[in-house]
């Protein structure tokens, strides 16, 4: 029974991951590739001497990385020491994306299924859309209020800080939405809203210098495209999870 629950979640996740790959290739990936052509150029606002010298070392690093990597120079991000980068198993960029989507899909599927089982109301065909929408809100929309989806080359604060803030925000948002959606008491709903607001009152880590070589229009298009595709991903994930649960886990 336990195995069946896990398999159902993984199956739904793999299907959603497959769907996500197709959706990404339509709009999101072309935008990433476009932005990468600007990456490594100096930001237009601050052409100082210091900026210039760091750019030179960057381009040296880039050429070194592109010589070492058979895949694509686009992966050699500026300022980053790429000692042992490169795509796993020497796959192509698309295969890497597909694989990562499948893994991520299975992961989110398991998280969704796990929360469903623990709360005693796993997604069904009827509630799947709602579960998916709540998942999207807590993992993407609410964290995106503080840390919008970024293109390569965008200015950003320290990675560790952002990841910590993102994780905490995701967890608090899921908890808050769970309280609002699943508990009937007014107090619980109020507490849910407080949990949703807390990380934003605290504030997301922001970069000190927001100058960027990547055009802002691309960033806006990308943010919308990324949120839209992840919404589609979560709706598919919730619905497929529900359908599989209805069919194979009637007992749950």
């Amino acid at each position: 029974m336990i195995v069946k629950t896990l398999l159902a979640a993984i199956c739904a996740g793999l299907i959603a991951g497959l769907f996500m790959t197709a959706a990404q290739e339509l709009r999101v990936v072309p935008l990433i590739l476009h932005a990468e052509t600007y990456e490594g150029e100096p930001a237009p606002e601050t052409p100082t001497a210091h900026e210039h010298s760091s750019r030179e070392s960057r381009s040296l690093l880039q050429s070194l990385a592109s010589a070492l990597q058979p895949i694509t120079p686009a992966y050699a991000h500026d300022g980053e020491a790429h000692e042992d980068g490169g795509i796993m198993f020497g796959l192509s960029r698309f295969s890497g994306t597909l694989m990562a989507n499948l893994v991520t899909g299975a992961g989110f599927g398991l998280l969704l299924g796990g929360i469903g089982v623990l709360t005693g109301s796993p997604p069904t065909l009827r509630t799947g859309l709602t579960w998916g929408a709540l998942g999207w809100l807590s993992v993407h929309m609410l964290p995106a209020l503080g840390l919008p989806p970024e293109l390569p080359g965008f200015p950003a604060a320290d990675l560790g800080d952002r990841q910590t803030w993102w994780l905490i925000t995701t967890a608090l948002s899921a908890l808050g939405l769970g309280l609002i959606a699943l508990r009937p008491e007014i107090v619980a709903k109020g507490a849910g809203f407080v949990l949703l607001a807390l990380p934003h009152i605290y504030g997301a880590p922001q970069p000190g210098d927001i100058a960027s070589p990547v055009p802002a229009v691309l960033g806006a298009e990308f943010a919308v495209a990324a949120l839209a595709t992840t919404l589609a991903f979560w709706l598919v994930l919730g619905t497929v999870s529900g359908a599989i649960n209805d069919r194979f886990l009637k007992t749950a």
Partner: protein
Amino acid sequence: MAVTNASGVSLSLNDRMIAGLLSLCIGAFLVFGAGLANSAVLHDTAHDVRHSFGFPCH
């Protein structure tokens, strides 16, 4: 086709807890590996995915 909450044949509470916690752990592990893990190989493989899922990335 109506889906009922047939509690008579439902998972025992214990089984539900195990199934739920197990899938939470595995799920978190997978998402962490694909989305957040600080490894150059994992980062490069999942690069486009990390960006499009809005995971904080380099």
